[in-house]
């Protein structure tokens, strides 16, 4: 399994970077995912997709961590989110829309919206697959995804408006 895991590391890291609020948590989440995969390798069913199996493990591990943060660090998370939003200033988006601003926006999203966005837009799952993966009805998936996407679109529109003024 060693080589198969290592081959998946770039995609696992991409997903972790989109899920984690802080950059320093990224490699930790990737490593934790690999540990769980190695411990639970008997849970991998031959003939199913190895990448989906790993992504699912990462998703569950991340959700566990999010839940733990919520229990003991809700206020901290809220303050961080406010800080992030403050940097972008509700609608006063930075003059130059940078990829860094997109990353900040994604990381400031509530976890459920972030996960929906990552599964569909980064991992390329269909709406139905993403809903199954998250264990929610299709409509719930779409409204989570919709709220996240609308934020991104607003960021883009803010940028366009900024350009018009210039």
């Amino acid at each position, binding site marked *: 399994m060693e080589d198969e895991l*290592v081959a998946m590391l*770039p995609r696992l*890291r991409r997903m972790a970077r*989109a899920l984690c609020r802080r950059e320093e948590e990224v490699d930790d989440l990737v490593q934790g995912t690999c540990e769980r995969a*190695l411990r639970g390798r008997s849970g991998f069913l031959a003939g199913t997709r190895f990448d989906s199996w790993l992504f699912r493990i990462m998703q569950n591990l991340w959700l566990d961590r999010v839940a733990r943060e919520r229990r003991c660090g809700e206020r901290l998370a809220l303050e961080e989110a406010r800080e992030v939003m403050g940097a972008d200033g509700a609608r006063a988006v930075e003059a130059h829309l940078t990829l860094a601003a*997109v990353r900040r926006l994604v990381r400031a999203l509530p976890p459920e919206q972030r996960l929906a966005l990552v599964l569909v837009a980064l991992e390329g799952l269909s*709406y139905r697959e993403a809903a199954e993966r998250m264990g929610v009805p299709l409509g719930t998936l779409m409204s989570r995804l919709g*709220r996240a996407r609308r934020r991104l679109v607003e960021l883009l529109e803010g940028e366009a408006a900024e350009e018009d003024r210039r």
Partner: protein
Amino acid sequence: MTDLERRLMAYADGELAPEEAAELEAELARRPELARRLRRYRESAALLRAAFPIEPVPPALEARVRALARRAAWRRRGRRLLPLAAALALGLVMGQGLRWDDGGAGDGELARVLSRVPSGMVGEGEILPTASYRTPEGVWCRSFERATPAGVRAGIACRTEEGGWRLRLWAELPAAAGGYAPASGGDPLAAAASALGLVPLGPEEERARLERD
């Protein structure tokens, strides 16, 4: 989110059924502001992918994952060593394939790994040091496991005054299937080490000895 907004997003993601898509396309042709909104949805997906590109993996992360994978592979083999450890603790040292060493030196590869590699990491020659100990006199000893063509060799080696390593005991087990015992983690030779009067060293103490080398 309005129904229209929802359909726009689904259309941008290629998730609308053909007849719904045709309906929306007709609406798009009539309303330019909707077409612009659609373009934003498409851009947002592309922007997201650009914001989170596939990047090179830091070598340190890859190394840690490889070490974890090897360790896990070792654990699965190491489980078969547990009954042996129990036998050693009872003093039943004449089991099959088990030897008290008569003083032969370990080979260079083993010595290098035991001198440099922390417990739990796989070193060259697929040698896995599993723990550090000291004798009552303070001599540094280490237990290890090593793959052999026939199966797994597990042993304990102690430091010599010349700075080399001497095998104190080792056992060889065939890589036969079966005999699957639940994992208990740690060092399968811990019981044997205790029978030899060895005292386990913590990670700090082990690090201090490794650095001295």
